């Protein structure tokens, strides 16, 4: 069974701080996606990484896929209150047919 563990489970920080969320597995994935989900809404795709060692930047967000394609990290620089939400990593198989979601990291950014 493929499992993705995220850490930390909950993070409460002040606006302007930096943070890193980790997503780890003992399984190899062909791709890794990061989503943000707000209450009452479905997850919104932030990024897809497919190559081991790949780094992608989306404004203040930096995503990295581990060399062995078993882990990933999300780093947010100078967090803003609008970054508040549930962050989910999801591993995909070769055909992207089934996503295995992580346990989620709930981020609260206070003014």
């Amino acid at each position: 069974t493929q499992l993705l563990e995220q850490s930390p489970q909950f993070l409460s920080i002040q606006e302007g701080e930096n943070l890193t969320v980790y997503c780890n597995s003992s399984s190899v994935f062909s791709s890794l996606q990061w989503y943000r989900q707000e209450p009452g809404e479905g997850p919104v795709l932030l990024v897809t990484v497919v190559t081991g060692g790949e780094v992608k930047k989306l404004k203040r967000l930096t995503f990295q896929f581990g060399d062995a394609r078993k882990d990933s990290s999300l780093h947010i620089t100078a967090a803003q209150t609008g970054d508040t939400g549930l962050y989910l990593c999801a591993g995909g198989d070769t055909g992207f047919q089934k996503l295995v979601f992580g346990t989620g990291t709930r981020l609260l950014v206070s003014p």
Partner: protein
Amino acid sequence: DAGVTQSPTHLIKTRGQHVTLRCSPISGHKSVSWYQQVLGQGPQFIFQYYEKEERGRGNFPDRFSARQFPNYSSELNVNALLLGDSALYLCASSPRDGYGYTFGSGTRLTVV
């Protein structure tokens, strides 16, 4: 363009009843997937359909079934509801076989 639309948005059912959830994908998207998200957890994969064929099934009992129609919309059916089926049911569509998912806002099912 409209996103992925799901109906109903909220539903309350009694144990043992049957429920049908509906999903309309983004226009042009031929793949639809269903996920169950229990409160406090990440979504769990239930089914994936592409071109009206089942392409993947998660670890859910036979009480769960789904289908995709010629217009690519989809239904998820759950029979003999249990309290543990209470969850947010998410539908996601993609333009081709499982690539680039867009999720709907979900149907919140409460079983009492």
